[in-house]
């Protein structure tokens, strides 16, 4: 059959529609909607910065959108201070987060979807050695190896702008707000209940995971900007504070209230039953220095892991962690569970606490009822039923780490602030302002427990709002992110980034000797990567921010890119609606969380469809393309912040 030139019906738009678009009479989104109606997948709009942002899985997953691949490349070049500053601008606490971040970037990492060899992955044996880049540990490398960065910090104006801001709580959320507002000339006053700053980072994260020196350095850097810090100064009345004439107030008081379990024997055994986070605080401040011989920890989150490991260091001989649900749905991070197990702590799952056993007025044990899994619920979580089987574990002390919540007994209910049914203030998700104008919330205080990196992200957004509020601007209109897309071509088949795929496995982090760590509460367990290990780990990064950019009118459909692609991402195919298109690709695109990059109609009437899922960003498509239809272009993306002075390294990165 003679080749038929493409007719107008094969195109995404009719000629009339295309003319309308070219004249600006029709939006691209309207064209796309019409294409969908015809059962076609419209061409991807790569001018929308969120399309390529999403391809950078780590940056997309990070609440503060830290440009991860960029700082990993800086580490690879030995430019540790620059890597640190890029982090500092995004997430404020690189040294702290490089140790104890919840690291949402790592499960998102594309490398975690790329198999190497035939060995099983530690978490899921069916995934062959598919492990994410050790992003968090590389962040620590930047912090550990950086030089003197004082001259790289933003300047704090000597002349203030006349606006006074009160921050309540000296945790990550408040400190992030202070960091963002100080370079703008705000007069910032900080109130903290505890004698030293840091919030839960100080009181609830044991120093064997986060040394005080690291905390002091990064918190001190912000206070040294000239924050008026008041320690041991608990705010007991919002009404009173509102009367002190601040232009805005930020509440960053965290979620300081640990949950309790009212079981039989709770009152009689009270002396030996401790709320996990309160107990950790007492340990952090040196008020508690020992614990009973046998300790049971209730709970499966990170606080439970910190409690059990701390108990071991205070001299407990037998520590047991008990969790009500199955191990696979435990809330604690995988690496924290591993560290507890490594220290010899058994974790008993499906154990629901029933009663405290009290003898002669003293706690002697804890009775559990074993649970059994009976399928999954609507949300896919295991459904549990009581088995009737009772188990008693003898113990001298119990640590309860079953969750925590924010609490506002100090906010009067007659100041016009709206509270929801759980006693939480109603906070706008976008502006972070409560129903009282000028009073902002962030971190765990806003919507309950999250983690440090979310608190920092909240802090950035709250600072933008506070700045807008103080200047009478709209809080709803948010400043737009900065983004650029620049070719990385340096010569024929030469790129400005290391495009060679390194099949190396994830590097393990060295640990301090177990025996020595268990004897010393303050000895940091993880030693971090040294520069040599870091140099190997950085090569595992796939540089997902270096995007495969396709220009359809240059393509001659020689198939070279499709043939060379090592992971079968690229397809030349007939257009279809997205669900069918995904099924019809060379390797069906079943991971729907990843987009399909669709081109406009090519000369033969086909389209190029690229599954972004496991693209290695190796650039071979661009190297094998005879016409330059494919190019590798670095997508730089920076979230807006209140103070542009806090984005000077980001501005350099945007180019």
């Amino acid at each position, binding site marked *: *059959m*003679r080749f038929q030139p493409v007719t107008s019906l094969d195109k995404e738009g009719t000629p009339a529609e295309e003319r309308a678009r070219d004249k600006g009479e029709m939006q691209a989104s309207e064209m796309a909607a019409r294409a969908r109606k015809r059962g076609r997948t419209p061409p991807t709009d790569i001018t929308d910065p969120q399309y390529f942002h999403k391809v950078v899985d780590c940056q997309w997953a990070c609440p503060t959108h830290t440009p991860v691949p960029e700082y990993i490349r800086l580490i690879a070049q030995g430019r540790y201070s620059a890597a640190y500053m890029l982090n500092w601008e995004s997430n404020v606490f690189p040294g702290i987060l490089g140790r104890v971040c919840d690291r949402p970037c790592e499960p998102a990492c594309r490398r975690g979807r790329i*198999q190497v060899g035939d060995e099983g992955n530690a978490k899921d044996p069916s995934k*062959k050695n598919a492990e994410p880049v050790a992003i968090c540990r590389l962040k620590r490398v930047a912090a550990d190896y950086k030089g003197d960065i004082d001259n790289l910090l933003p300047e704090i104006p000597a002349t203030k702008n006349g606006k006074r801001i009160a921050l309540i709580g000296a945790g990550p959320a408040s400190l992030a707000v202070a960091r963002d507002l100080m370079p703008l000339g705000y007069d910032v006053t900080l109130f903290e209940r505890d004698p030293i700053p840091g919030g839960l980072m100080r009181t609830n994260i044991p120093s064997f995971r986060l040394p005080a020196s690291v905390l002091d350095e990064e918190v001190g850097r912000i206070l040294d900007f000239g924050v008026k810090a008041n320690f041991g100064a608990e705010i007991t009345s919002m009404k009173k504070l509102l009367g002190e004439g601040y232009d805005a107030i930020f509440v960053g008081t965290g979620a300081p209230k640990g949950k309790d379990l009212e079981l039989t024997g709770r009152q009689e055994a009270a002396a030996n039953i401790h709320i996990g986070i309160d107990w950790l605080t007492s340990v952090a401040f040196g008020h508690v220095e020992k614990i009973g011989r046998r300790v049971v920890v209730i709970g499966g989150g990170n606080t439970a892991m910190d409690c059990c490991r701390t108990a071991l260091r205070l001299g407990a001989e037998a520590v047991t962690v008990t969790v009500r649900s199955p191990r696979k749905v435990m809330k604690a991070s995988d690496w924290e569970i591993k560290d507890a197990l490594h220290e010899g702590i058994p974790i008993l799952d499906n154990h629901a606490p029933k009663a405290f056993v009290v003898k002669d007025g003293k706690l002697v044990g804890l009775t559990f009822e074993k649970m059994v899994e009976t399928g999954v619920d609507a949300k896919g979580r295991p459904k549990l039923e009581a088995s009737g089987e009772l188990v008693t574990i003898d113990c001298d002390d119990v640590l309860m780490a079953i969750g925590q919540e924010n609490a506002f007994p100090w906010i009067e209910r007659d100041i016009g602030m709206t509270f929801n049914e759980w006693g939480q203030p109603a906070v706008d998700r976008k502006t972070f302002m409560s129903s009282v104008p000028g009073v902002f919330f962030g971190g765990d205080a806003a919507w309950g427990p999250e983690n440090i990196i979310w608190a920092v992200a909240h802090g950035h957004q709250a600072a933008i709002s506070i700045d807008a509020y103080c200047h009478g601007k709209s809080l709803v209109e948010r400043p737009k992110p900065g983004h650029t897309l620049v070719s990385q071509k340096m010569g024929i088949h030469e790129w400005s980034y290391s495009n060679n795929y390194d099949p190396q496995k994830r590097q393990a982090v060295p640990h301090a000797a177990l025996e020595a760590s268990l004897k010393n509460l303050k000895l940091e367990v993880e030693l971090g990567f040294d520069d040599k290990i870091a140099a190997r780990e950085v090569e595992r990064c796939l540089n997902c921010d270096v995007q495969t950019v396709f220009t359809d009118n240059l393509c001659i459909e020689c198939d070279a890119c499709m*043939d*060379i692609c090592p992971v079968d991402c690229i397809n030349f195919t007939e257009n279809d609606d997205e669900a069918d298109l995904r099924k019809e690709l060379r390797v069906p695109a079943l991971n729907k969380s990843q987009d399909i990059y669709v081109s406009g109609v090519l000369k033969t009437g086909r389209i190029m469809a690229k599954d972004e899922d*496991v693209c290695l960003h190796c650039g071979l498509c661009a*190297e094998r*393309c*005879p016409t330059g239809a494919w190019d590798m272009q670095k997508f730089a993306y920076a979230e807006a912040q209140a103070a542009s002075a806090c984005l000077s390294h980001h501005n350099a990165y945007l180019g």
Partner: protein
Amino acid sequence: MSYIAKPSAHHPALPRNALGLTRRDYEGSMSTLCAGCGHDSITAAIIEACYEMDLPAHRIAKISGIGCSSKAPTYFLSRSHGFNSVHGRMPSVTTGANMANRDLYYIGVSGDGDTASIGLGQFCHAVRRRLNMTYIVMNNGCYGLTKGQFSATNDKNSPSKKGEANPFDAIDLCQLAIQLGAGFVARSFSGDKRQLLPLIQAAISYKGFAFIDVVSPCVTFNNHPASTKSYEYVRMHNMASENKLDYVEPQEEITAEYAEGTSTAVELHDGSQLMLYKVDGGHDPRDSDAAIHTIRTNAAKGTVVTGLLYVNEDQQDLHDVLGTDERPLNALPMSELCPGSKALEGINARLR
């Protein structure tokens, strides 16, 4: 030419064939041909064909001559036997190998210079002898390795990159192969993998001389709009004589239903079949005269006829003709392979 090796990682959901291998296991080393070279697409089709046919790499021998095309075997089947021979001498080397071991699949790769100029005589005699092999010509109409001079297959008047018209008539290798008695003759286009893939599979399954002339644009020297061997020209002037092709493995059932008179099943020696779906103007591929007529009349109009052009399902191969031993030489015991001087004396005595 890329400086990095092709990454070892493959798609986690990449399917595996009956041997437990992925398509990636049939690859060779990284191509050093120009980016966008049609030869790389043919390479990809050969990889795909061998993968889909579950062929064990050690049962395949790939043999080539000299030229861009003849470099290509390095880029597929790195675990197979290979011989990169002298210019134009691929047919002789393949003949020798085939005579010594009839149990292997022979894939000969050659170019328009290697076959239509220096090796034309070799080509003719391999066809005449019905050598059991798959002979693929990667045909770009020019000498890419020596900066793009016209080759003998470049169409008359089809100009060079600089605009000079070719003064000579082209040698049509498919017409030549049919005239010389090739049992399986096809023409395809490197930019049409959907057609090329089943043709390669059928050619490998065919017992006898299977010839595929693949128009394969030279992106560097012969891909300008006026060239009759360019991506654009072939796409606009491709008359697929049998529009659709489908290779059906021996154990597979033909599941699709075809309207009476629109499809033909070509039986191949290993029990597999090549299904042909006719379109208007298609000829009967069992009729060699009709095949030559179709090629000639279309060529006069500037149209390239692609698809299976001619097939003889009953052809005997060289071993059948010569009545050779069924076993390869390496399977013969020493006493039979070299029966000794007494046996030689006997033979000599018969000749006296």
